[in-house]
């Protein structure tokens, strides 16, 4: 059993005391910050990213992954208790989760969310372990032309499935790709767009952009809203769902997990799409759909499991192809490159301990979250009451210190401030930051493959369409764009995103 050997290798890596400790630390920190209202997982990860740079690669990535689930978990806690979703995928959690809390079943809601997520985590971890190796086999057949086309598909898919205005989102991708061009060109050694500033020759760190565009601008938008005072009902109640709730929740958990696993592999699919799809399905299947939105356990259990399965499954394209599907996985790619690990199919063979260690630690992380967080719920509730006027200066401090520690250079602080400024403008213009981040991370890789493909084809552009695999990928991308542009679907899609807002 090859799979078994792999998993044993994974456990041997993930169960070392050091890695367990970092996994735990990541989960705790992630939850801690994720619980705080108004901070989504992307700024959380961006903020904590510099800490993981000082660790060895395996430990660093394990901790990052821990931060990710922690943040997601913390986000659903906030969504259930105070109806403040930190990210789009938690919007659905609010619908029935918060209603349950209002009905006095807050504890049960939290437990259902946690157990559902854990179940989804177990299944999707097994799926990653099973699916990743064959997918990586396929990826090994890819030449530069296929890689380029795959990235086009990945980027298009990410915005088609997860963003508002399509042309604007594509513009943000292009801008991200251009920002990725800043710095020394690896082929010629020419410094591009450096404007004579030596610090820019190393390029712009994606953590700097993420903190500026997501962290700083979010702070300013939140401040404008004049924080709605968070009213927490500190009575969480019993953590045990009753028989009726349990009976209604578990089929939804299973279905949600299935949806999440299937949709999570798609670029951009991940958490958001899965949770929406699952909610719709549960409502359609239910014998009494009128109970949805009034605290139906299935309306919470389904989406929560789906978004956890989805966000884990989005690690499949990340680990096998090196293609990020959303902003979070883009940050993971960036972190891998910092640790000198080129993401892609070769990771599995060149760093098997990292690959399988990370997968197993995902499962352990999920387990830790269930074991730790349910008893700690009282603490998280207290955190919810921290007023924003104390919170936001703290975020600013963490970002500033974190950015400075990247290179021990104050220049990075200024660049972050600059991105905070443009991020604020973009927020006003409703231009999304996530596509920009994807472009920024993929920019150098995309150029490299584009150049190589054309070098091999002696400058013949048809290489992208004459190679069958590459053509297939490009056609898929084209189909996605046309589908979205069709009037009937366009209207539906806009409707869906309006619901989200």
């Amino acid at each position: 059993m090859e799979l078994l050997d792999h998993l044993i290798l994974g456990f041997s890596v993930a169960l070392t005391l050091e890695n367990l400790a970092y996994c735990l630390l990541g989960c705790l920190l992630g939850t801690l910050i994720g619980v705080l209202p108004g901070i989504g997982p992307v700024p959380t990860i961006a903020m904590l990213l510099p800490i993981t740079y000082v660790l060895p690669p395996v430990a660093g990535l394990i901790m990052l992954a821990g931060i990710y689930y922690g943040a997601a978990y913390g986000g659903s806690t906030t969504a259930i208790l105070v109806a403040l979703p930190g990210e789009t995928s938690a919007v659905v959690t609010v619908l029935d989760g918060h209603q349950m809390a209002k009905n006095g079943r807050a504890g049960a809601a939290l437990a259902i969310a946690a157990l559902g997520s854990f179940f989804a985590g177990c299944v999707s971890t097994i799926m990653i372990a099973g699916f990743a190796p064959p997918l990586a086999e396929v990826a090994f057949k890819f030449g530069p032309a296929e890689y380029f086309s795959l990235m086009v598909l990945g980027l298009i898919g990410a915005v088609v499935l997860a963003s508002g205005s399509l042309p604007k989102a594509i513009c943000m991708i292009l801008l991200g790709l251009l920002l990725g061009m800043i710095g020394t060109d690896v082929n010629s050694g020419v410094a591009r767009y450096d404007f004579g500033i030596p610090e820019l020759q190393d390029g712009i760190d994606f953590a700097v952009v993420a903190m500026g565009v997501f962290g700083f601008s979010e702070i300013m938008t939140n401040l404008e809203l004049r924080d709605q005072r968070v009213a927490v009902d500190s009575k969480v109640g019993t953590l045990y769902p009753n028989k009726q709730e349990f009976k209604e929740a578990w089929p939804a958990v299973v279905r949600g997990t299935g949806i999440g696993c299937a949709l999570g592999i798609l670029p951009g699919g991940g958490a958001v799409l899965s949770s929406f799809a699952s909610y719709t399905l549960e409502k359609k299947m239910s014998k009494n759909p009128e109970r949805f939105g009034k605290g139906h356990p299935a309306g919470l259990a389904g989406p929560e499991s789906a978004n956890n399965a989805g966000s884990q499954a989005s690690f499949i394209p990340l680990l096998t192809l090196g293609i990020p599907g959303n902003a979070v996985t883009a940050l993971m790619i960036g972190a891998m490159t910092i640790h000198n690990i080129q993401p892609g199919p070769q990771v599995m063979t060149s760093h098997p301990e990292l690959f399988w260690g990370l997968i197993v630690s995902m499962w352990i992380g999920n387990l830790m979250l269930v074991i730790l967080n349910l008893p700690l719920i009282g603490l998280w509730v207290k955190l919810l009451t921290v007023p924003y006027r104390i919170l936001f200066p703290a975020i600013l401090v963490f970002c500033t210190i974190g950015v400075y520690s990247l290179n021990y250079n104050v220049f990075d602080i200024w660049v972050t401030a600059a991105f905070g400024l443009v991020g604020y403008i973009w927020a006003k213009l409703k231009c999304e930051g996530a596509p920009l981040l994807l472009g920024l991370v993929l920019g150098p890789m995309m150029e490299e493959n584009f150049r190589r493909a054309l070098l091999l084809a002696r400058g013949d552009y048809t290489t992208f369409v004459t190679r069958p695999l590459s053509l297939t990928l490009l056609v898929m991308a084209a189909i996605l764009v046309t589908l979205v542009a069709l009037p009937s679907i366009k209207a539906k899609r806009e409707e869906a995103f309006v619901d989200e807002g």
Partner: protein
Amino acid sequence: MQLRNKQDFWSGVMFVALGVGFALRATKYSMGTAARMGPGYFPFWLGVCLALLGAVVALGALKEKAHETEVERFDFKILLIVIGSVVLTGVLMNYLGVYISVFLLVFLSSLASHEFSWKVAAATGIFLVLFVWLAFIRGLGLIFPLWPSFL
């Protein structure tokens, strides 16, 4: 012709400007040929694509059936305080050291909140300085200029 979707229009204008800017700058680097690309080739065409698509976005905003949107008012006070205090921290870090800079960052940025109270701001500042010392300096062992350089 009427400017209906203001958000999209100004986004489009921004994309065109940035695209043109990047493309123009790229012409200063060697372009090479498709088979042997120079450093300017890829960014040049990216810039051109961005400018073209930006134009599509901007023109789409002028269509009669475009959604009507307004650009929300900018809150310049918050913007200035938040970004300003971060920039200032960058300036002061090497002269005043991390402790004083962090305290100033917290205190000054707190002014952006509509419920500012100097007592709370100062207390938060002291707490965060302690936290930075404990977590980043002692815990992670990051190397910062700690105290003012002139002392």
